[in-house]
């Protein structure tokens, strides 16, 4: 006996769960992707026939072919991939789908020099260990948010001012030709102001990034475990007075979520362990500030964690307060592995995925 229920027009959403039928939802998705696929096929056939029947068929260039087939190609790929994804998941539970996705991982070479399943969901750390230090074992890479900001400001300034130049040339040509397009001039004034502002913001960010000199962090060991004590060396370039330089160990949570059509990321620092602090520092030309300290990863600490939309990350934070420039913070991520728990069992096979019985 099979129950059949018509879809409801309005449904309730309880947390992440909905009251609607999953089968009807999948049916709706299948109709959507199926219609895209059919539209792609129809477009391809119609356009193909028209091109083939065109008088100058032999002289059509490759670019014309590609441009003509761009829309039907997109429809075919979106519709086809959507249908394939639906068919793969049809009738499967959330756990079944996760198990299915796990199979490729199990056969992939790890590339880390150890079993890929040894520390599932701990982010890889090869990139942190491939730069040897001059005094301690590893030189940590800088989290590049600051560099990306400067790059973003620069890109905006270049693109915006390119548009401004085009408008200005058009206005200039009109003016030389004896015409004055007042609307174009009115648009040009705020555009020029924004363009100048973009350049100023970019130059300021660039100067701030480079004027105070680079920050360098080297550590004696990596990755670390909760309870581990580790030596660290901080190096700060630049010339002149610094009011304060401080070093701390931070734990940050990061969650990515959708809000309407936007994807947002929220970060929250949930732990901060001060490591060392230096005040009233003067750096002579040709030298840099350099100090050694040591820190301990808290014994009851959460390990580093990264999944598709969530992460828990450890990092060394360097807060610098120059006398003549605005203060800034630079972050150097590290990886903390889970606590040691008794004798290692890493070489025994992990929990498995099995099907008992005849299958579906």
């Amino acid at each position: 006996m099979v129950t059949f229920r018509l879809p409801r027009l309005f449904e309730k959403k309880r947390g992440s769960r909905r009251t609607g039928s999953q089968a009807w939802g999948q049916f709706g998705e299948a109709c959507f992707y199926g219609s895209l696929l059919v539209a792609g096929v129809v477009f391809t056939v119609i356009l193909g026939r028209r091109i083939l029947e065109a008088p100058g068929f032999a002289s059509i260039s490759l670019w014309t072919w590609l441009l003509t087939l761009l829309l039907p190609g997109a429809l075919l790929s979106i519709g086809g991939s959507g249908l394939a994804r639906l068919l793969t998941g049809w009738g499967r539970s959330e756990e079944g789908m996760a198990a299915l996705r796990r199979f490729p991982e199990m056969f992939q070479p790890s590339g880390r020099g150890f079993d890929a399943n040894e520390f599932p969901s701990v982010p890889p750390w090869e990139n942190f260990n491939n730069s040897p230090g001059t005094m301690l074992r590893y030189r940590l890479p800088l989290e590049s948010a600051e560099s990306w900001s400067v790059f973003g400001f620069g890109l905006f300034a270049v693109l915006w001012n390119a548009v401004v130049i085009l408008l200005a040339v058009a206005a200039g040509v009109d003016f030389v030709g004896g015409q004055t397009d007042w609307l174009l001039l009115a648009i040009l004034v705020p555009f020029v102001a924004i363009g100048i502002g973009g350049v100023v913001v970019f130059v300021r960010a660039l100067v701030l990034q480079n004027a105070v000199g680079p920050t360098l962090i080297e550590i004696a060991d990596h990755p670390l475990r909760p309870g581990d004590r580790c030596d660290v060396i901080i190096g700060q370039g630049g010339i002149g007075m610094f009011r304060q330089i401080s070093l701390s160990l931070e734990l940050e949570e990061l969650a990515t979520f959708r809000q309407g059509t936007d994807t947002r990321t929220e970060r929250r620092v949930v732990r901060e362990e001060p490591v060392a602090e230096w005040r009233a520092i003067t750096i002579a030309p040709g030298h840099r500030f350099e100090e050694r300290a040591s820190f301990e990863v808290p014994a009851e600490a959460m390990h580093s964690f990264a999944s598709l939309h969530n992460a828990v990350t450890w990092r060394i934070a360097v807060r610098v307060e120059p006398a003549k420039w605005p203060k800034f913070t630079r972050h150097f991520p590290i990886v903390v592995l889970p606590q040691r728990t008794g004798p290692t069992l890493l070489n025994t096979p992990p929990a498995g995925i099995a099907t008992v019985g005849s299958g579906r």
Partner: protein
Amino acid sequence: MSRTAGQERLEPRVVVNFDRPSRRYDPQETVRLQYHVAGTGDAQVRMIERSALWYTEGKGEEDLGICFFERITDAEHLPPTQRQGEFAFRLPASPMTYEGTIVKIRWCVRVRLFFKGRRDFVSEHVFDVGELPPAMPLRQPPTAPR
């Protein structure tokens, strides 16, 4: 769920007994448990899926990682013929159960019953991996999205 004439109302439940009443395990330990399926009457169960997994909760989209997955389709191992079952799995080294402020990680065992002609039923039983203290917020993000 609407019912057709003659179809009895089901109130399935799955009782799970972990080998450790505290339900707290260390990474890489083996978890053993027994379960009992009740409230299914004479309804035909065509399949049972039993799994162990972690999932995230909090502000971000949910992520999920499977540690153990087993599907039973032999009628002789399914209710109403057999209502009890047991399974064991070894936990990986990570992730550990974590009670953060915007990211939380939970471990659970799920027993999912697939009925013939009815909607499937899933029973979830949470347990802890490791023993970490909950995190406390230190400072608000500079640009908290609304």
